[in-house]
């Protein structure tokens, strides 16, 4: 396990997070958790499951498209997902089961997941990515 799963960084107008993972799957799960940290609200209620399927043309796009899809599901269903079980995972597609809770309201409105300065790197065997959210 990576020491830290994600950290929230400073940005003049939006929110930037740095995410870590031993594997690409873990990197993606932690990115989702980092996004939730920004969105989250205190009142968690009923447990829920959602299926997520994403196809993209490369790994960077897959990460943005995955987070965009999770954001969509969160906002439309008023839910926050704390975990994901991947059934399929490659550089261009993924399929998984999201596990989370319904919520009463969000603390922050994320407009979108952006490609701004997005880079997925492998440093000393650890995957790392920086992601910027437009809020």
């Amino acid at each position, binding site marked *: 396990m990576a020491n830290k799963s994600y950290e929230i960084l400073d*940005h003049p107008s939006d929110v930037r997070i740095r995410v870590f993972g031993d594997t690409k799957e873990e990197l993606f799960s932690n990115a989702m958790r980092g996004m939730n940290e920004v969105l989250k609200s205190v009142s968690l209620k009923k447990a829920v499951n959602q299926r997520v399927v994403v196809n993209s043309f490369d790994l960077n796009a897959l990460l943005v498209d995955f987070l965009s899809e999770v954001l969509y599901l969160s906002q439309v269903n008023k839910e926050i997902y704390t975990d994901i079980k991947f059934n399929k995972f490659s550089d261009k597609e993924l399929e998984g089961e999201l596990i989370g809770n319904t919520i009463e*309201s969000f603390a*922050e409105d994320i407009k979108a997941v952006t490609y*701004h300065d997005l880079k997925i790197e492998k440093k000393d065997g650890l995957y790392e990515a920086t992601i910027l959210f437009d809020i």
Partner: protein
Amino acid sequence: MISKEAFKKINDYLWEYRKTGQMNVPARIYVSEKMLDEVFKDKSVEQSINTASLPGIVNYSLAMPDIHEGYGFPIGGVAAMDSEKGVISPGGVGYDINCGMKLLKSELSEKDILPYLDKLAAEIQKEVPSGLGKGRQIKLSIGNLDKILKHGAKKLVEQGYGEEDDIKNCESNGFIEQADPEAVSLHAKNRGRDQVGTLGSGNHFLEVQKVEQIFDEETAKKFGLIKNQVLIMIHTGSRGLGHQIATDYIQVMMRAMPKYDIFLPDRELACAPFKSKEGQRYFAAMSAGANYAWANRQMIAHYIRKAWNEVLGQNVSKLTAIYDVAHNIAKLEKHKVNGEEKELVVHRKGATRAFVGQPVLIPGSMGTASYVLVGIESGKDSWYSTCHGAGRTMSRHAAIRALSGQEIINQLKAKGILVKCYSMRGIAEEAPQAYKDIDEVVEVVHRAGLSKKVARLVPLAVIKGE
């Protein structure tokens, strides 16, 4: 690294970076010399230069005085593309399609409203939810949503949520006719179904304001503005629906670019030829998103009027629209290029259209001044575009660390400004100290001839959603 020395001074408020490398045209920035030092603190200059590399860009990649770092394009960026040979780029519009301003005027003066101010602000807050929580509790059917996407604010006025003047005093009369609901994904529609008439978060706000100072008596009279008059300002956009359209089409265009041999320095600049299938489809979807935003501001105006009458009675003076204008949009417009009229796709991202004689609405940050300007002939070099606001200089975290929500409420209270917001964090994030000085930005706009100052407005009450 690009430095200030690389810029040529055209005049006191205009600087040019010559065409080099991949650029198709030079980049021009409207700032004072003092502000030019500031713009190098982030990536906005680099983004302005990158924008100059978009195919079919005409004359210059332009940046307004409130320029700061965005995605792909800088915020405050203006770029006109030849509609035949050029591209359209979702990054040149931004994620919040048709984020913009609506300004309503009353016949009441400050002294008339002060005894009712607290009640009015509370009632407006109750009537206009942020949409982050329980929202409006009205979920539109896809069929009804499609009508709003197609006909914008016009549709709502027809349904009784406003009056003819609301449409007359609105950019494009509240709708773009090329809008096609079919080009909008189901994801986007689902995000928008329960958000018509919601404010959102971030820098979006409602303000009860007064006219503090008039600079141009004649134009002020034409717009119906007098000193101490009470106004209401609305700042919001197309909410989740617009954000999703942008997300969807950045993906579509990134996939399509190799097909059109377009290779760009930044993924967020993703684009497609305007006349291509992808370009036309984005334009139709973006226009639908813009229509949704005009409808959103119209619906908010309706609920503000309801609150106004609830608190002040049915016989009180009406709230009428001065104007409604977008600051994140791409429009098909005719402009003179080398003496010849041409059809251009004008991208304004964090920039406001300022046609000759048109009211221009520029919000300040929370608790600071806002301005009404008017479009003038000398704005032609910027395709009749001007700034859109103050522009952030401090991160949300830094703002929260610097001052607490309560400290800011106290500071504003000392200035006679009432704040209504459920979230202390929301207040702290939007601290006036986190933004550039709006007076300085507008002064440069005025002196550069981008548009002319008409009136300075100051807030009496600030309302920030539920």
